[in-house]
């Protein structure tokens, strides 16, 4: 009997229910069967000794009587039971049958298998490169030989080019303070840390950096990762898990998006930087909650955005976003990789700009841009930081960053604290200068936020994606041959690893060391290049 029930358990849940029902019915019948047999036996004991075949006959007689009584008293019972019994047999029989069908393999003879294995041909490991990809390889092979912050010399250029392409907004990577700090730490601690943070890879400079960052944010703790991009992906994946809900901007960059993919959470997207669309999405979620009477306290919910979008240059309207997340009970994960050291009167990022301190639950910052170092930080309350020390994949399973980069970041932070206000003013002024230049060029139209030092512009014409890309590539290389280095994003920023492909654009980044005359000269070069190709 238990075998039957077991086999039913395996087949499906609906049948499982039936099986238990049948089980109890059948066992009832067995019990009455046993009872009748016992009474027959008792009867035989009462009388004088009788031959054993009489027992058997008596038993049959009793059984027949019991059966007839059963049919007479409760015919429905008998019919139902018989049908169920029949079903069990069918299920068992069919179950075996379907197993056979599933096990397709067993029908193949070994020679057929050999043939299949022999016939299988792997495709090549990588497909041949397209023209677009060949251009990327070429650009990748062009090497930087000299870097001064404002200027870059590459192996393909004979003279210094004006640098409008790195994210080194404050020119910290060549600052004397940063280099001095790096040198001192290198001399005492050597280069590599030779281990993950958990296993003697935590060196004193790491602790100092974490303390400094926490102090800047006014929290107790912060956590350092050894790579900027893995900071955001590890952080998102450490908190959001299967079953949680992430509402993400369609324009987020690859690092955050990888974290979203790895988390395997439910994902809803809203239009890039569009708070009205976000409200609609959130309202829809709320309606769904009501309809399905979901318990919102069971599901962790996050809105994932960037402060300055790496692929668009737009600035997040944090005030509206904070109002929305409070209204709809969400948490915020904001990547401040391009905004820390850049936005706000003190250069402390988007919360400084909107004067909304501690309004973001989880902030990730790359140390590789404005701070001119290597690595990344996540800042949040104790719970947020502590959890990552065991669950942040990039923290736990990767070697820690060389100690000298921590000291370099601490030195950069020191500079920002000291001269931050002036630097930010200068950076903003430079950004405005370039924005005004771009606005004057009629072939280009500005797509980034006017306050962002990462300036994006696309062609004003409405040509096809591909031809716009080619034009912009030509403009970029024309600018390069005239001494201005800027980035055309159309080749490598595609829909590969992103939700949507942004339109082909030119990207210009300004830094604090640029002077107005440098930028004006660059403006003339860009204007000429645009006139040549449009």
């Amino acid at each position, binding site marked *: 009997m238990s075998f039957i029930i077991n086999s039913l358990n395996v087949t499906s849940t609906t049948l499982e229910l039936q099986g238990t029902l049948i089980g109890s019915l059948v066992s009832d019948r067995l019990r009455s069967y046993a009872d009748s047999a016992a009474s027959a036996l008792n009867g035989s004991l009462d009388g004088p000794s009788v031959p054993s075949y009489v027992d058997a006959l008596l038993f049959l007689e009793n059984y027949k009587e019991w059966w007839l009584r059963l049919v007479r008293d409760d015919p429905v019972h008998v019919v139902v039971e018989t049908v169920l019994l029949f079903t069990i047999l069918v299920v068992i029989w069919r179950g075996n049958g379907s197993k056979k069908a599933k096990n397709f393999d067993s029908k193949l003879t070994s020679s057929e298998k050999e043939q299949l294995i022999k016939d299988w041909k792997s495709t090549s*490991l990588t497909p041949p490169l397209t023209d677009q990809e060949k251009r*990327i390889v070429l650009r990748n092979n062009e090497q930087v030989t000299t870097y001064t912050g404002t200027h870059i010399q590459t192996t393909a250029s004979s003279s210094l080019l004006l640098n409008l392409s790195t994210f080194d907004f404050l020119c910290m990577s060549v600052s004397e303070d940063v280099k001095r700090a790096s040198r001192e730490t290198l001399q005492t601690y*050597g280069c*590599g840390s030779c281990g993950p943070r958990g296993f003697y890879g935590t060196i004193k400079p790491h602790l100092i950096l974490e303390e400094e960052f926490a102090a800047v944010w006014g929290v107790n703790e912060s956590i350092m990762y*050894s790579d900027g991009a893995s900071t955001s992906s590890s952080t998102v994946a450490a908190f959001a898990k299967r079953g949680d809900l992430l509402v993400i901007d369609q324009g987020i960059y690859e690092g955050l998006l990888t974290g979203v993919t790895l988390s395997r959470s439910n994902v809803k997207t809203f239009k890039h930087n569009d708070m009205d669309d976000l409200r609609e999405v959130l309202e829809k979620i709320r309606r769904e909650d009501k309809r399905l009477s979901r318990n919102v306290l069971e599901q962790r919910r996050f809105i994932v955005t960037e402060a300055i979008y790496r692929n668009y240059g737009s600035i997040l309207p944090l005030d509206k976003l904070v109002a929305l997340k409070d209204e709809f009970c969400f948490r915020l994960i904001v990547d401040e990789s391009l905004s820390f050291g850049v936005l706000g009167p003190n250069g402390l990022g988007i919360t400084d700009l909107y004067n909304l301190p501690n309004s973001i639950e989880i902030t990730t910052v790359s140390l590789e841009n404005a701070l001119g170092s290597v690595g990344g930080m996540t800042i949040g*309350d104790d*719970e947020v930081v502590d959890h990552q020390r065991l669950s942040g994949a990039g923290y736990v*399973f990767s070697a820690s960053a060389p100690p000298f980069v921590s000291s370099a970041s601490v030195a950069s932070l020191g500079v920002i604290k000291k001269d931050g206000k002036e630097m930010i003013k200068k950076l903003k002024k430079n950004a405005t200068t370039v924005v005004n230049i771009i606005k004057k060029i009629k072939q280009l139209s500005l797509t980034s936020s006017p306050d962002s030092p990462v300036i994006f512009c696309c062609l004003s014409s409405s040509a096809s994606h591909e031809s716009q890309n080619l034009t912009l590539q030509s403009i970029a290389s024309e600018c390069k041959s005239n001494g201005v280095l800027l980035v055309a994003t159309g080749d490598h920023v595609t829909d590969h690893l992103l939700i949507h492909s942004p339109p082909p654009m030119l990207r210009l980044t300004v830094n604090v060391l640029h002077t107005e005359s440098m930028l004006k000269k660059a403006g003339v070069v860009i204007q000429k290049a645009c006139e040549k190709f449009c």
Partner: protein
Amino acid sequence: MSIPSSSTLRTLKVAELRSLCSSALNPVPSNLNKLRKADLIELLEASDSTEAATQSTYEYDEDEVDPYADVRERLEALAKYSAANPPPEHHITLFAAFTTYLGYAVLICVGHLRDFFGLTLSIGSRYVPATPRTGVAPLLKSWDNFYNRRLYHRIQDCFNRPVGGGEGAKCRMKVMERVSYDGNKTMIVANRAADTDKPTKFVDGQYNETDEDGDVVRRCLNLGSYNYLGFADDWNDTCEKDVLSVLDRAPVSCSSPRVEVGTHELHRELEVLVARFLGKDDALVLNMGFNTNATTIPALVSKGDLIISDQLNHTSIVSGARASGAAVRVFKHNDHNDLDKVLREAIVMGMPRTRRPWNKIVVMVEGIYSMEGEYCNLKNIVKVCKQYGVYLYLDEAHSIGAMGPTGRGCCEYCGVDTKDVDVLMGTFTKSFGGMGGYIAASQDVVDYLRTKCAGSIFHNSLSPIVCQQIITAFKVIMGEDGTKFGRNKLRALRDNSNYMRMRLTDMGLHVLGNYDSPIMPVLLYNPTKIAAFSRECFKRGLAVVVVGFPAVPILMSRARFCVSAGHTREDLDDALVKIEEVADLCCLRYAKSTFGM
């Protein structure tokens, strides 16, 4: 015993080859009489090539002193035996299994009890999670959080120990003492100046010192860092000059991805060097070892492809595989027969449901498995991959620079041509004392990855200063600096590792892994022994790594020793005496008795 050249071998008869095999090979293959001529020749050639290379590097010159002269013969015999046989398998003793489960049961019950009382009576349990905003789900829930609060926090002083005292992760390092005033929930660095009125909980003793900031440090022998070739120890002699000169002329960070303007000339120099070192067309160098796997795998494989991964592969590979969208199958750790079975079934059955054939299949293995101390059974795995025409991806994170007579990793050690491995991946954090990772492969593959791998198109590139560190380390290993430093380092690493492993095994500990591998995990089993072993070693001036669930299976908690070329025999002898004391204290001699006593 010398083996004739391959041209002579081909002229010999099968019977002669067999007799040659039986005399030259140790151990003699059990199926010797069934092997065909080609197989026999291959066997002999392989044994010849590894032996010749081994001898030239590992022998001591006449003017050098072999610190292990007294045990040399036994060491070589053990190494040879280990290379030809599978690593020892340790079975957990019944007593250990019972007490381990009991230990976890008690920990979990007590944890739940404390949670219960903490929440219902709200008597201010330190571990009760923070209350979130109204209407928002708690940030942390479930088993993970419970595990952290109730199991991990109790012993968190054994992990994340910071290193200070003005020295890095050298072989003789200074570990910062920490104290906790809230029952181990948070650890604070012990400072003599700040903590005068508070009770200090660290064991002050002969190993303690105070550094210039007043922080208390403990002088320890480092048996935990991946500083295999000891570049952290002699950094000021070997690397300082080159690295600091680059700091003068290059930026600290490129602040740009490789494909924009983040390719410094040092990146290319390093890539060319890596490719030359490994005998591949080209290489791609990225900023972080973890990300090298996590971003390359999604670029190489996608939906419609199949990844066949070793059971014990590192999280970075798992992470990359998960992000790629390809199907993943797992084969038994290091078992080429199981790989064969999995491959056969995958090819015959095709994709699930649609039954279309797989576009491509990539087998992923590691050179040395960092938690097992075992190296990859590469020769057989390559054979299986070739037989089915599938690609092989080898992660040499721990083995590059640490294995093989010239440090060229698992391929060299196992006698496999790097041409037979399609994608070679490795990191610079370990043997090279830098950071970042590389992919070395054919020109097509590397070029394709430059255009598709997120590490190349979106992530900022490796710091030029770190590039120079790695280049210098490579030059030393390859002997291109004109010294014998590199050769001596490789020799010292091998000797130290084998000596340490031999002595640990002699002690009767359950030691995992192969000879010639610098990683030796020792099984502790009981959760309570994780902290006991670590703290007792620390008390005696040994910094060791202990690993528990979830990084390893629940029954298999272990301590892990990583040996370096920077250790001397005296260091190791001293450490072994202390380890023996601790092993007695913790009852770890499971190879001697069921109770470990």
